[in-house]
């Protein structure tokens, strides 16, 4: 038990630090004394193999199969003018599908996926069968939704993250690239890339905005796109990308010369792209990795929306990503609530259920109140986005709530179980780590 934990730690610290630590470790007689040298060496080999920088996935050839005169767009939603918290029939269908998938499969696979840092292929396939990655694809290109689908995406994200946030991230990440292309792509870009997201073999793909640095601000990108003749040259680093090694397509945010922050569509085969492993405290089933972009040359047509790219679209993209993460945080927060209620009612101390103590009961009701508020704020932001209304304020508020209250809920979930909350026998420690992640993520998901 100790061995595997230590080994994993080693493998994950990245090579530079890993080698330094290895030196110390190799010189220590502790390993020999407790007879685990062989295992450590073996695990280290595995870790190194996985930890080294590697090429991006080979990727398929994306080709336009049809010609669109102009970009196809999903219609804006209409409002009945009434306050309403009920999802429509189609949304309910997605929601129920997502919920039973999460309960029957995702939750059960979560512990192992967290440990292995891998989401089982069957689960990814089933998520694709649910249609989660084609919500942003316009009907003309084989999509199923006629209207914009931010609320629907939120409902699905919430449902899947009730099972496990890391698996939900792994499953939903490709859809972010597709949705970005569906919302802002040119006719050519849509025709080239979107059909792949409606078939059986949906590519791993990523919306890469986050960069590895403190106080990251998605509006102040260090990834730069320089204009060189008719080409763009991209350089920078992107962080915490789901299934980075498998990704066949990236939508990358870069500060574009003469434009400001903008998105670029980049296939994994582009020269100068590489990925490296980037294990994190949470979202582990998503096998997060870094994307290294070293003077990657792109044609003018790689700029998302081409001549139409606008700063406000990029800002909208950032905010739509935040809404997506809010959906996931809400689902996981609800999972905490649903887990602690029976626990505090069953758990006896001093001759009575611990829920009889106000300190416990208040903590549980706070989780109930805050998770509900997170949900409502997220729905409001998403529904405004669907109707084409301004939503920057509502997205910021939802994010604030989901970050702050989400982390509090994660922490309280652990605390309410006491020592039991800290060990992996219960899922609350994992939810704590994931809810922490939802507070720092930018980009990566999209509604």
């Amino acid at each position, binding site marked *: 038990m100790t061995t595997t934990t230590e080994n994993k730690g080693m493998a994950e610290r990245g090579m530079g630090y890993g080698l330094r630590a290895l030196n110390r470790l190799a010189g220590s007689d502790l390993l020999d004394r407790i007879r685990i040298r062989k295992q450590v060496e073996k695990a280290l080999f595995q870790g190194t193999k996985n930890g080294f920088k590697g090429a991006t996935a080979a990727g398929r050839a994306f080709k336009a199969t049809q010609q669109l005169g102009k970009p196809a767009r999903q219609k804006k939603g209409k409002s009945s003018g009434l306050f309403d918290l009920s999802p429509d029939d189609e949304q309910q269908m997605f929601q129920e599908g997502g919920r039973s998938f999460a309960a029957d499969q995702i939750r059960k696979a979560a512990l192992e996926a967290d440990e292995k840092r891998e989401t089982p292929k069957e689960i990814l396939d089933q998520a694709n069968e649910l249609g989660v990655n084609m919500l942003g694809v316009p009907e003309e290109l084989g999509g199923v939704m006629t209207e914009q689908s931010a609320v629907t995406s939120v409902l699905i994200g919430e449902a899947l993250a009730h099972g496990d946030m890391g698996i939900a991230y792994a499953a939903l990440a490709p859809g972010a690239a597709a949705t970005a292309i569906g919302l802002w792509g040119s006719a050519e870009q849509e025709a080239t890339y979107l059909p792949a997201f409606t078939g059986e073999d949906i590519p791993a793909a990523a919306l890469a905005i986050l960069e590895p640095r403190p106080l990251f601000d998605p509006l102040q990108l260090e990834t730069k796109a320089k204009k060189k003749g008719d080409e763009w040259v991209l350089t920078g680093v992107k962080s915490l990308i789901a299934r980075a090694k498998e990704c066949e397509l990236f939508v990358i945010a870069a500060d574009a010369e003469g434009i400001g922050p903008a998105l670029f569509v980049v296939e994994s085969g582009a020269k100068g792209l590489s990925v490296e492993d980037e294990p994190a405290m949470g979202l582990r089933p998503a096998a997060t990795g870094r994307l290294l972009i070293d003077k990657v040359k792109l044609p003018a047509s790689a700029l998302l929306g081409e001549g139409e790219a606008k700063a406000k679209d990029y800002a909208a993209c950032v905010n739509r990503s935040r809404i997506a993460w809010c959906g996931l945080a809400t689902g996981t927060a609800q999972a905490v609530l649903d887990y602690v209620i029976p626990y505090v009612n069953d758990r006896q101390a001093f001759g009575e259920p611990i829920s009889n103590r106000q300190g416990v009961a208040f903590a549980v009701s706070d989780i109930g109140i805050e998770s509900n*508020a997170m949900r409502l704020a997220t*729905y409001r932001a998403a529904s405004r986005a669907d109707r084409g209304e301004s939503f920057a304020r509502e997205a910021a*508020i939802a994010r604030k709530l989901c970050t702050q209250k989400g982390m509090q809920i994660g922490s309280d979930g652990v605390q309410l179980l006491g020592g039991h909350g800290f060990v992996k026998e219960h899922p609350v420690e994992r939810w704590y780590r994931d809810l922490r992640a939802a507070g720092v993520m930018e980009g990566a998901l999209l509604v």
Partner: protein
Amino acid sequence: MINLEIPKKFKPLASQANQVATEVFRPISRKYDEAEHSYPKELDMLASLIDGMNEGSDIGGAGAAGVRREKSDNGDNRNGSNLSTVLGIIELCWGDVGLLLSMPRQGLGNSAIASVATEEQLKKYGGKWAAMAITEPEAGSDSASIRATAELDGDEYVLNGEKIFVTSGDRADLIVVWASLDRSKGRAAIKSFIVERDNPGLKLDRLEHKLGIRASDTANFTLQNCRVPKEALLGDPEVKEKGFAGVMETFDNTRPLVAAMAVGVTRAALEETRQKLKEAGVKIDYDVPANNQHAAAARFLEMEADYEAAWLLTLQAAWMADNSKPNSLQA
């Protein structure tokens, strides 16, 4: 279809209430905060105006008119009096909570009467100002353990006990008093009775001096062999467990209204802060992460998020009441 915006049809109402708050409440807000226990006579004319508004529309008034559970004709989404009342109260309390609580004929007792009264009672007591007397020195939130008693004597009930924290108790025409028909039967025996303010058995002990909502009078009473006609009992006189649930249902309808008061004041405070920060040159940016902004801006975003949470939770509870969904938890 998920939509968390203020319904279009209630926008005129919210805007009227906002005008009242701006033109009537705010100018006299400080005056009655300082002159505690003096009657805000400016509200008389306003109250008549609001009575008129209530008569003339089917979407509830601008204040604490009664909120009744209405059955929806079909499964369709409904935005009714619970939601419209919440919206009206938010606007008015953005003006001043104490003055809202002092609005003639808009008391909590009116809510109770409107929610559970029979047609005869509605006819008899309609148009009057009704306060609510629940709390006792020994029973606050635990309303099931109240000690006031009601004994049937011929055609009258005889009430005895002590009531505190009665909002508008001095100014109202009626007091809705909670009392037990049989203290051995617990909460099932608790009923509410309508007592005329000038009933000789109802003795005003004192008015409280308070931290806030000072424009509103908060009265303490003693009920001493206070006799009321049999017909003054609100709802069903039978002693059965379900009865108390019905009484508590009033709270499911009125708690969102109390929340709306807090939401209204909060919004006022938030707007004032936003203005002051703007004057101080602090920019609040919704796109930039809070950690990258001025500490005051980051704190403001946090406050605004908490405000929005409270606002949405309040609307949700009211919407559920409008749609006959059980809302004890949300309320």
